[in-house]
């Protein structure tokens, strides 16, 4: 199978995908409800799409193609409100968070489609451990070469995005010590990691063809990279974010990626090189494990500082782009989090510490997801 042409898309347009947890309202464990939820949501007209995910206690929503933070937030609000109403009709709860804090993976059921069953057959227990919930952000690129340039430029900020969005400290009832334990599950997949360092679409095509020849991959879907090109949409897709606990945070993270993309493609603050990837896995681990307090090794200078410091510097550099993209509110929200509690993982830990009951933590996550009562 070939890669296909790189579709045209408007520069810096964006789309957001969010994977959500479906829980019952008795003990707040994951609950199989995606087909019931899809049936009810299907009766409404919404912007974007709501689709099933690999196990039937997950559901995915995505926005249409948006140009601004406000538009993303508007669409997310509309879809969220509809989903929350439908879930209430079914006695189900919906929440964000990169992992469910106490679900048992062996009890998960694979959603009934051929592709999901194929994946389940191939990866065995990994596919059920893949009951994890992420946010994907698509950024439109005018040409495939620019897409690759943007992809490798954004790689520098993968640790920043992980640390800010991390919301998965608990796995199967235990505090993992990580801020994003979800990504540990992703890293277990053989084709996870980063894209090869090529800067032209022709070179990328050659790489893909060689991989396809080995029979290891059939389509781009088989790569679980942190950022990957999506030729059908003409976008690059950032995949490292944990699903945040609120849609406001989700929209802010999308806007942050958009601002970064504008900065990287217009100002060219640094030239991407293969050597940028030398501290890549170290930085990524630090972000997953320690969140904002993790160490960040500057790939150009080798300097060490905390992610919190580098994020603050980055946000300052983004200010003109945030103004140009009308994303001021999004950046302000992220600054507020930096100054206040930190990321969602810290919030989850604090609630777990106070309540001493993980189902109660999930209940409060549902409350935050549903937003203020209308």
């Amino acid at each position, binding site marked *: 199978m070939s890669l296909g042409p790189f579709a045209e898309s408007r520069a810096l347009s964006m789309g957001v995908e969010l994977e959500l947890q479906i829980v*019952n*309202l*008795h*003990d*707040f464990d994951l*609950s*199989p*409800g995606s087909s*019931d939820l899809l*049936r*009810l949501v299907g009766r409404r007209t919404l912007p974007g799409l709501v689709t099933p995910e690999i196990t*039937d206690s997950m559901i995915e929503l995505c926005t249409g193609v948006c140009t601004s933070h406000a538009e993303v937030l508007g669409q997310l609000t509309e879809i969220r409100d509809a989903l929350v*109403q*439908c879930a*209430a*009709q*079914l*006695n189900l709860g919906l929440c964000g968070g990169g992992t469910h804090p106490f679900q048992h993976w062996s*009890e998960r*059921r*694979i*959603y*009934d489609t*051929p592709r*999901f*069953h*194929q994946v*389940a*057959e*191939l990866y065995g227990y990994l596919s059920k451990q893949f009951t994890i919930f992420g946010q994907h952000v698509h950024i439109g690129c005018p040409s495939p070469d620019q897409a690759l340039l943007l992809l490798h430029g954004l790689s520098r900020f993968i640790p920043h995005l992980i640390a800010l969005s991390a919301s998965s400290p608990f796995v199967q009832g235990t505090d993992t010590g990580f801020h994003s334990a979800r990504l540990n599950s992703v890293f277990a997949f053989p084709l996870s990691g980063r894209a090869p360092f090529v800067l032209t679409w022709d070179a990328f095509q050659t790489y893909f063809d060689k991989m396809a020849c080995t029979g290891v991959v059939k389509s781009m879907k088989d790569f679980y990279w942190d950022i990957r090109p999506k030729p059908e949409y003409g976008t690059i897709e950032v995949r490292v974010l944990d699903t945040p606990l609120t849609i406001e945070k989700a929209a802010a993270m999308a806007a942050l990626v958009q601002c970064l993309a504008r900065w990287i493609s217009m100002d060219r603050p640094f030239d991407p090189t293969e050597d940028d990837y030398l501290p890549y896995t170290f930085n990524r681990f630090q972000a997953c494990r320690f969140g904002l307090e993790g160490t960040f090794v500057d790939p150009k200078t080798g300097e060490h500082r905390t992610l919190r410091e580098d994020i603050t510097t980055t946000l300052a550099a983004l200010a003109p782009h945030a103004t140009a993209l009308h994303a001021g509110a999004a950046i302000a929200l992220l600054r507020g989090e930096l100054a206040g509690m930190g990321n969602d993982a810290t919030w989850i830990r604090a609630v777990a510490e106070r*309540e001493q*009951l993980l*189902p*109660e933590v999930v*209940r409060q996550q549902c409350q935050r997801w549903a937003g203020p009562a209308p």
Partner: protein
Amino acid sequence: MIDDFAAYLQIVPWPMQADVVFWSALMLVAGGSLGETVFRRAGLPRIVGYSAVGMLIAVLNQGASSHYLIGVVRVIVDLALGLLLFELGSRVNLRWLRANPALLCTSLAEAIFSFLAVFAALRWLGLSLNVALACATLTLATSAAVIGRVSSELHSAGQVTERMVIMTALNTLIAVLLHKLVIAWLHLDTVGDWMAAITQPLYTFGGSFLVAALLRGLVAWIARRLNLRDENSVLLLLGLLLLALTVARMLNLSTLLVPLLAGVLLRNTSVRPWVWPRHFGTAGGVLVLMLFVIVGASWSVQALALGGVAALVLLLTRSLVKAVVMAAGAHWSGISLRQSMALTLALSPISGTALVLLADLQISHPVFATQVEPVVFSAIAIMELLGPVVVQWALRMASELPGHSASNGKGMQP
């Protein structure tokens, strides 16, 4: 010779006498092993095995006496059913009924129309007004014991599971209220005592609500201080529940209403989730096993001969009406037609609740009760083994059992 030997070994009394403890132990062994056998060999819920032991006991005794549910047997049934009703009640989320009014309407319609249809069908069969009224009331409720036990044993989850729980809680509530009104009506009919007809149901409802509220308060108070998943706190919880049920019995309140309402109150007066082991761990499990053996032993061949046909008509009418109501409300309340059919099946079991209501009728109107017994005993007997199997079937049909949909994808290597 043997007598002398026994005397030498100081075995007194001789010949040996088997007491209640001996028979109870035997019941546990037989129920436990048959339950496990049907579970492993036939893949059926364990309670099928427990009930089968009960039915066997009834055959060996050549039919249970009609005044069966008295003394220690009644105590066991009250306690076991109380546990299951408390658990059921604690899963009833009243906010759900507000968010989905169609569900509330279907649930009410299901209870009321099956009551009316069963009443009409029994009248058509030639039963007297009062007998038809009593039979329709006693068989209104779905067996909380059967659905609760089957769903937790099979770890089912989904819309059919959720809805059968809330609908059973609702139709049990309606059945108990209606039952008290029927008893009041019978009072009026036989002794013409207006005062008793009005004050007695009021006392039962009000008193049961108060005891339930008290129980709810105590449980919540304990839960704030202890971890409910801890074995010792579960024992404490079990003790409280048993105490409340005993008080209810001593005050002549409803042993069905108290635990059910306490569960509902607990669930709906606090947003914090309650987590405790199902059936209150092992101690509760023993009671539940004995409940099914006892209910299983309540039938007799004579009763089946007398009331079998009426019971069959009753059960068919009941299921037919449920099917129509569920199908009519399916789209509106947000489930598929297939799920509504599964729900109809899941609501069909009749067991402990009907037996307890019948026992109360036997106490208040012993003579009249003899006319009701054959039909109710037969309905219980027919659904005894069938009920759990049908519920399991329904849950499988709705794909709500673990590993169900995953098994469809075998042999699809990429």
